[in-house]
């Protein structure tokens, strides 16, 4: 179950950026829409122990280079055992991207690290689970 991630491509230098941008960061030309598969390699990662207001510690952050070239900043459940170059999957929930395949419990813990309304968080977890089940069925049907 690989996510398709919306991106944009520069017609002049072919750089792919995600999320999509209006103009290429390197050239004053309009970018064209593109998509990227949600899998790639870890470029770097860190665990932030003093996150800014609005986030809880420890906060796991990675830069992932997607197959097709675009780089992405995302959250993860843990960075223990992670290595630069490791292959990970990316999944979006409420427009926030998380790397690696995660179990339901790990994802529940992740949502709790972002402070917000409890109702929103539970809602997001439920939708994420429903999405997995739905995609699993689709795969089984095909």
């Amino acid at each position, binding site marked *: 179950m690989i996510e398709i991630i919306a991106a944009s491509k520069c017609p002049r230098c072919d750089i792919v950026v995600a999320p999509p941008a209006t103009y290429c960061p390197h050239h004053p030309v309009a970018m064209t829409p593109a998509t990227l598969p949600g899998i790639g390699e870890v470029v770097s990662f860190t665990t*932030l122990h003093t996150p800014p207001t609005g986030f809880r510690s420890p906060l796991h952050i990675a830069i992932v280079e997607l197959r097709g070239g675009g780089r992405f*900043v995302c959250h993860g459940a843990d960075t223990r055992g992670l290595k*630069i170059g490791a292959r990970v999957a990316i999944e979006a929930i409420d427009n926030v991207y998380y790397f690696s395949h995660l179990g339901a419990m790990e994802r529940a813990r992740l949502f709790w690290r972002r402070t917000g309304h409890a109702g929103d968080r539970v809602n997001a977890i439920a939708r994420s689970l429903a999405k997995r089940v739905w995609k699993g069925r689709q795969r089984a049907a095909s």
Partner: protein
Amino acid sequence: MQPVFVAGVGMTRIGRRSEPLPALMAEAAHAALAEAGLEAPEAIVVATMNPEEFVGDGNFASNVATHMGFAHVPALRIETATSSGAAAVYTGFAQIAAGLRRTVLVVGGEKMTHLATPKVSEIIGRSIDPYERTYGVTMPALAGLVTRVLMARQGVSAREIAQVAVKNHANGARNPLAHFQQAVTVEEVLESRMVADPLRLLHCCPISDGAAAVVLSAERATVRVAGVGHGADTLAVRHRRELTSFAATRAAAREAYAMAGFGPERIDLAEVHDAFAPFELMSLEDLGLVPPGTAGRATLDGDTALDGRLPINPSGGLKARGHPLAGTGVAQIVECVLQLTGRALTRQVPAATYALAHSIGGLATNNWVTLLERA
């Protein structure tokens, strides 16, 4: 182009200060003006990164000018995130070089220790790409991401990075205006609290209050501004291919060396933007001060120590002198001028003729290199 000289410098003690920001800036500015023998400058350039958020005041150039008795001197404010001070020096330099002014007071400073660390982190973090920020990415987080690649791909060792902090603390211990005036050991650095893995607390510069000022003049003085360069890069770190070298530093250095008509081989000492210890190693290579891949070794060998071949951050750098954001770029020029005029007390670099100041704005989106020469 009109030659530009530094007629006077001034700086407050950097650290936790109780005075309001305009008072700190006035202290530095009046010291610089007194040294220049000038009652009033023709124009003022003020650098503060974010007074709206840190102290709740806007229109800050007028605020500061009025506070120090120059309500009728034209003042403007310059901002390029953490390199605002260097950008202000450039603005003053450009006014004189263009023949628009004969004397310009440049004053930079920040006041932040009155706020809690997560709040300060968040405000500084607003200079990061808005999308990346929605992930809780802060400056230490980005620096942690850069450092991990530096260690994994370039083979830079934890000991080499720690030695930068050890050296700069040793220098700060000789600077009576530094935020930190005590030495630290490699072990203390390596055992300090983890901030953004693999970056630890003693790899990071402190949150500081303080201000620094320089008076630039068309009149001949002991130190001349030989060249200024400005380099830029993408706001979003994810839009860059390269993480272990800053294109904005390389571009700024190229421009500054071209203007000055000399290269890195002439530099006797440098003030380098070590907001995070590994940045000093990267910057030494980006500035051409050491060959690629050798900054860590040179640091361990003592080449960049006060008594080494090329002293780096004799003031203590951002690490030990402290980092009052927009004050830093000006404070670096102050240190270079003190060194070039033989007034750097027990941290004096002998017979210094050429000095370099390097300032990073944001995560290297707006970098500056300023070259100074004993005229």
